[in-house]
């Protein structure tokens, strides 16, 4: 009997045709599976409205996520390099990633910009604890300002100034 965990070595190329049972079921018993199908445009429009609905609530969601982010950072910032610090850093990474997802989806470009940058810096192994503290704090300060003032676009004088402040911290400590 063949061993499923150690299948025999295979050197060639096989093409495996898989029966399209999904199409059969998607056209239903009265449909013809040889005809092309589609999802009705009105349903797609309705789905787009769901995205808009989520976006109406997104400032509150981002606010909640920022609170969690700050709470995690308050626990993490004074810890020396340790497994606990790494664990918190992973949690901040995911929280920042979530903020980035929601804000990007809803057109909050500046929040998306800083949360993506925070996500990418939080796990940089080459940073010392001191460098990390300065860089992460700069990101969190920028996020707090952007969220409290409701800035949306990542262009313009205010956006440039906030980006410059974060860049200064990065350039000085990384």
């Amino acid at each position, binding site marked *: 009997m063949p061993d499923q965990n150690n299948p025999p070595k295979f050197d060639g190329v096989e093409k495996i045709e*898989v029966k399209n049972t999904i199409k059969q*079921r998607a056209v239903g018993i009265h449909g013809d599976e*040889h005809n092309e199908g589609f999802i009705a445009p009105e349903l797609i429009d309705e789905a787009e409205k769901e995205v808009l609905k989520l976006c109406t609530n997104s400032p509150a969601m981002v606010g909640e996520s920022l609170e969690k982010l700050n709470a995690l950072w308050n626990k993490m910032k004074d810890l020396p390099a340790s497994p606990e610090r790494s664990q918190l850093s992973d949690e901040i990474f995911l929280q920042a990633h979530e903020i980035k997802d929601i804000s990007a989806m809803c057109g909050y470009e500046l929040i998306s910009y800083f949360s993506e940058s925070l996500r990418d810096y939080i796990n940089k192994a080459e940073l010392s604890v001191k460098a990390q503290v300065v860089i992460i704090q700069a990101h969190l300060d920028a996020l707090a300002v952007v969220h409290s003032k409701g800035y949306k676009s990542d262009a313009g004088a205010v956006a440039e100034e906030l980006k410059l402040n974060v860049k200064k911290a990065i350039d000085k400590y990384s």
Partner: protein
Amino acid sequence: MPVFNKQPQPYDLSNLSILIVEDSLYIQNLLTQMLKIFGVGDIMTCSNVKEAKDLLTAVQATKKSRYLRSVDIILMDWLMPGENGDALLRWIRSHHSDTIRFLPVIVISGYTTEYIAHKSRDLGAHESMVKPISGSGLAGRICSVIEHPRPFIKSPNFFGPDRRRKNVPYDSKERRKTKPDEIVVKHARSE
């Protein structure tokens, strides 16, 4: 009344089951709502790779159950706590059960680079889409999986849907070691 009606027809997705693997509850809820609007009959959700493996093992093994529906399509995030989407994709494509390893997978990524698209394709994803999610983007990926099921290719370094979507002449240096007429054509075990 014409004998052959080749007009495109709207899908009835009420007989399909889609598994969402996404750690963000906001995005998970959004995807669930969108799929409900599209009329998908059964929507399952998991927040991480382990949950997804457990669920797939349970539902695909009990395929004939009256109470548990098997999964038809997987929608999965790439970046998740614990194991990432690549671990789930590898697990699916290397699974011994045909009901799991041939499952269509659509990868959703928050990274705006081509890296994830290429990596997920090379690990055997059918489709990939970059967040932000849109209704038309999601519908397009689902329609593509339903309408254009590509054959699976099994080679020493790859198992997944054929990465070549079009059969067009290729002018550059041939990198394939196996000529088209040397490829063995098989049929997956029927359900």
